[in-house]
């Protein structure tokens, strides 16, 4: 008499993560922020730490990896690809690209794997 669907407490919905990441990025990177080499490290740290705090506050049995990339927009091309070996029923990723800013690219990725 097994319950084949995992109970809610042991799965993570992409929408939950999306809300957390979008909030964290929008609080640091707005549409008018210009690329500043001396401040970029600090922005990345803030985005990543805020996201991580909220993700761990979900209190679910998952390991998280939050990755943030910021590059100045000059017309140079940028490509990002991910390949994984994991359990597709429980693990997933979410990628958020900041579109509204004309001066920089900000791509934030969250990977989560079940314990």
């Amino acid at each position, binding site marked *: 008499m097994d319950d084949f669907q995992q109970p809610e407490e042991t799965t993570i919905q992409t929408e939950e993560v999306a809300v957390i990441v979008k909030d964290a990025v929008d609080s640091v990177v707005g549409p008018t922020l210009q*690329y500043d*080499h001396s401040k*970029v*490290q600090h922005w*990345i*740290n803030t985005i*990543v*730490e805020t*996201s*991580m705090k909220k*993700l*761990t506050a979900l209190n679910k049995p998952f*390991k*998280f*990896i*939050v*990755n*943030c*990339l*910021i*590059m*100045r927009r*000059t017309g*140079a*091309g*940028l*490509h*990002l*690809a*991910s*390949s*994984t*070996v*994991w*359990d597709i029923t429980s*693990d997933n*990723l979410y990628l958020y690209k900041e579109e509204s800013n004309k001066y920089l690219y900000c791509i934030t*990725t969250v*990977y989560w*794997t*079940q*314990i």
Partner: protein
Amino acid sequence: MATVAENFSLRPNHKKKFRAPVVKEIMKKVLQQKLDGQEYHPDNVTNYTKEIADTICARLKEVGWDRYKYIVQVVIGEQRGEGLKMGCRCFWDSDTDSYAEEMYTSKQLFCVATVYGIYHY
């Protein structure tokens, strides 16, 4: 009726733990193989990123560490001397889980590959 008792260990054997230098070596070889002498063209670079990520994944499976999940991330960009910063935070078990990164630069392009290895208990 034969029963088999299995030893279930919650931690990997220290010989079978994720070792960053080993993975770095694998990534270096793959990057050099795929990117030496290549120029940046928006059409083919998309394929390179996917191929490199898939090749690294395949090589990692060959290493034979049991119960490890891998996440490979590859970033390729055109080399224009621009500033780029990448940061990451991980919430995991630092005894069993780790990561390795490798960078490749040439006159035309730059490439950053990261591998995260996560143990599945």
